[in-house]
């Protein structure tokens, strides 16, 4: 598959602080690449460097096979960017905002009009065309922010945490929209610190911490890294220390903890783990309210790799 974007050995320093530390990765045509990392890990900086907004110490950025420069207009015309901060004019209504930014790319008025309609439909703002940003709720504003960035039907789209502080309904709408973009042939780079989004959305994930790639691969590949296959949670009013010790000795158990009425067990491999636990609890006559099993998430991967939670 064709490489759309390639980043080679990118280094960016703010004074003595290395925000991006020798980063290299490729993005293939038609994929959704997730850039995952906690706040301050260098995701936005990386994107700004790729877009030639920031100076960087060393490295090479190639987009569509050409080197990226501030005046590489041929490249820029096929890029769409949705920044983390909402970037719209307070004084313009929804339609005018999209028209303004779209107009920076598309001169033909008829075509532009169609593009704007498509964008509005994509983010579901049909009922708010004449609204001003101040009148929109946080979620709708985010949608407008996205529409402004992608109305010109770019081939490569950067989305920098487009769902921060967004209500669930808007979030689903946004995620659906992004999928549609991909289906229409766009390549997407998506940064976030929301694990769930990455899991549903991304074909491939790169986990960044302190400006370095600490892991990359598909969601499943990454989950394997964590060496955990199943997580079981049991709500028990009280638990004997001895029983906990015994559970720890079970087959496949990686770790077991009991805190505040919650028994939490992680398994290295996953077959019949849950049923044998239920059997055991019955045998020792421990009553429990709820018991459930989960597949590991990327958060566990992150936790495993860095020893800290992804969300701070």
């Amino acid at each position: 598959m064709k490489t759309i974007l390639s980043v080679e050995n990118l280094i960016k320093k703010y004074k003595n602080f290395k925000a991006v530390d020798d980063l290299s990765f490729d993005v293939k045509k038609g994929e959704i690449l997730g850039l995952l990392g906690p706040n301050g890990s260098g995701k936005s900086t990386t994107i700004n460097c790729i877009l030639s907004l920031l100076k960087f110490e060393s490295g090479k950025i190639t987009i569509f096979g050409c080197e990226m420069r501030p005046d590489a207009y041929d490249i820029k015309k096929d890029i769409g960017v949705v920044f983390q901060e909402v970037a719209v004019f307070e004084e313009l209504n929804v339609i005018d905002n999209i028209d303004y930014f779209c107009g920076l790319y598309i001169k033909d008025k008829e075509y532009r009009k169609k593009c704007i309609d498509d964008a509005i439909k994509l983010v579901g703002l049909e009922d708010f065309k004449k609204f001003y940003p101040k009148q929109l709720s946080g979620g709708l504003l985010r949608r407008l922010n996205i529409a402004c960035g992608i109305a010109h039907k770019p081939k490569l789209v950067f989305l920098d945490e487009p769902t921060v502080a967004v209500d669930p309904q808007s979030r689903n709408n946004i995620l659906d929209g992004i999928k549609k973009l991909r289906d229409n042939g766009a390549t997407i780079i998506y940064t976030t610190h929301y694990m769930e989004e990455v899991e549903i959305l991304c074909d491939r994930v790169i986990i960044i911490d302190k400006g370095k790639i600490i892991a990359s691969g598909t969601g499943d590949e990454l989950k394997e890294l964590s060496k955990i296959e199943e997580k079981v949670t049991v709500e028990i009013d009280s638990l004997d220390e001895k029983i906990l010790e015994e559970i720890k000795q079970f087959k496949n158990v990686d770790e077991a903890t009991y805190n505040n009425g919650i028994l939490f067990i992680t398994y290295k491999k996953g077959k019949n783990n849950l049923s044998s636990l239920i059997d055991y609890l019955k045998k020792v006559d421990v009553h429990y309210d709820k018991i459930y099993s989960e597949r590991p998430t990327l958060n566990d991967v992150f936790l495993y790799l860095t020893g800290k939670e992804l969300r701070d």
Partner: protein
Amino acid sequence: MFLHNLKYSLKTLFKNKMLIFWTYAFPLILGTFFYLAFSNIENSEKLDIIDIAIVDNEEFNNSIALKESFRNLSGENEQEQLFNIKYVDLAEAKTLLENDEIAGYLLVEDSPKVIVKTSGINETILKYVTEEIIQNEDVLTNIIEEKLNSTVIDGSIEEFIQNVREDAISMLDTSSLQIRDITSKKLSYTMIEFYTLIAMTALYGGIIGMTAINQNLANMSNNGKRIAVSPTNRIKIIFSSLLSSFIVQIIGLFILFMYTVFALKVDYGNNFPMIILLSLTGSLAGLSLGLAVGTIFKINENLKTGIIIAFTMLGSFLSGMMGITMKYIIDTNAPIVNKLNPVNMITDGFYSLYYYTTYNRFYFNIISLLIFSLIMIILSVLALRRQKYDSI
């Protein structure tokens, strides 16, 4: 692209309420205040008819010169009526003075005496006029004496004296020595207030330019980031935004001009092309100030607005907005300050158009404004040359 950006830049600027308040409404409001407060000042400074009293006693009635002269000076049909006189008794004169109904009163006893409350202008005039009457009497006496001594009189002495007296009185009225008033007719110093107002508005235009340019720069605003990643020539966009701010600025200035000329009767002189030239140059100075503040400082927009407002208000203060005397004090004692002050360059430009008949001073101001603008633009270009930023 140029027109597309121009259209939306105009739209955003016109819809920015704060911006329109400061650059459109505020100067109009301030101008109205100036008009209300100053419209009467220059008339109040003109000599009014002064209310005085004269104690109507025997001594006064015996003094023909005083009686006649004051009657002439208070005649309502007289062209140069100076006094409005009440002839009263002493007690009433005192009461009138106590109640500030008169500036003072004349009491003739052994010699004439002027009684006043304080030592103001009207009081001074009353004193001088009385003195002049007495002095004129003295002149007549002297002349008659001299003529009696030097001339051989044939005929009656009384008749001779009468002739000399009449000659002298007519000479007092019509002097053969001429005074010519060469005052320029345009001496209305309150005009300066309105000139500083125009100057202030021109520089406030910098806020418009700064706001527009901020939207174009990736290191200043999020919208700027979007523009930076789009396939557009930055210089083109910036020029287009500057042009739109200039248009907004000029329209505001035009409205202000119309308002001051037609509603407030401000006199800018008659040299129309020069007024336009000065307004455009002044606006350019404002725009370039806004451009420089917008591009050089990496601080939030409110602070930038603050900087432009503070700079402009200080400039207005020094060029006489809060008291016209200030401009004169600076002009005479620290001329360099006002030669560097763009608000004063504009104010002084209008002043020289209004008051001066030559154009040297006017051109000096125009050139100063151009130099100021050029420096601001060069500074901005230096800041704008960066296309990538160390941080955003």
